[in-house]
């Protein structure tokens, strides 16, 4: 029983990493010229990378909070003899793991953002 739950958690973490990686890759590919423009205007690569990370993590945080809220509401509505509990510390721990998985998923895209050449904004080079 315990190992099944752990496998489910591992699967959720893998999916989180995969979905965030896909999101980050699409975001970086679609907005390459815009990111280059910001680099040309003087934005640091670290600032752009932090922006990408924040945008990738925001849905994770919102999703985790919403999932916690819905689950807590369902537990509250369930009969008292129903054998389920949702300790906040456990939920926060899982949220942390999912965020770490998301951050790992953005790794490749972060590297691409850091390597964007601002000179591409000048045409005819």
């Amino acid at each position: 029983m315990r190992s099944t739950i752990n496998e489910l958690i591992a699967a959720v973490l893998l999916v989180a990493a995969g979905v965030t990686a896909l999101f980050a890759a699409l975001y970086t590919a679609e907005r390459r010229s815009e990111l280059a423009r910001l680099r040309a205007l003087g934005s640091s690569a670290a600032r752009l990378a932090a922006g990408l990370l924040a945008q990738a993590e925001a849905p994770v945080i919102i999703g985790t909070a919403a999932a916690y809220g819905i689950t807590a509401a369902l537990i509250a509505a369930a009969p008292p003899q129903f054998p389920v509990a949702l300790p906040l510390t456990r939920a926060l721990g899982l949220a942390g793991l999912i965020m770490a998985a998301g951050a790992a998923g953005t790794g490749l895209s972060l590297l691409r953002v850091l390597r964007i050449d601002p000179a591409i904004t000048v045409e005819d080079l």
Partner: protein
Amino acid sequence: MTDEQPAPAVRLQGVSKTYGRDRTSVAALRGASLEIRPGELIAVAGPSGSGKSTLLAIMGGLLTPDQGTVEVGGTDVTALPRGARARYRATKVGFVFQSLNLVPFLTARENLLLMASLAGIPGPQARQRAGALLAELNLAGRERDLPGKLSGGEQQRVAIARALIHQPALLLADEPTASLDTERGLAVTGLLARQVHERNIAGVLVTHDLRMAATADRIVRVIDGLLTDNETLNAEVH
């Protein structure tokens, strides 16, 4: 009484840049030297592929030359590490790109505030400057419009306002009139010249159009990577 010239705001010495290697290499700039004084707008003219955009990109800290130095306000831009070059672009350089490069989902005012934020200008000061600049460039009432709702000339003026909000030492304009007709193009280059003079900053206008170049105080030609301060041409167009 002596008629002393102010010290150059921009000084390029022996700047060379080659793209590619061996047989496929192309020398974009070959030992370019140039000085620009505060309050002076120079036009860099030349055919497509002559090296003028490379010159602009090097002055703006977007490219590093293979040889030579670029000093802006006494700082050797070519010696700056990557992070410091980004800071240099954010604080010392105002860019007006050929394709404007306004952020499409930000309003005219927000485009200016974004630049101010990159330059580290505090919010209240940035908002005050943005309002004043947009009004000065006849964009009052268009502050909340997205770039897509503005005409080509209005977008160009927003791009100029964005390039000026952080009070740069150097204004770089890369073919800013390429998508405009002659009348609107001359209005834009005239506006650039006026801003450079009034703010006493150095300005560079890259163009292939001599009618636009004539708005500048001086014309410099780039042909096959070589820079020539063409006195005859200057005399003809002015």
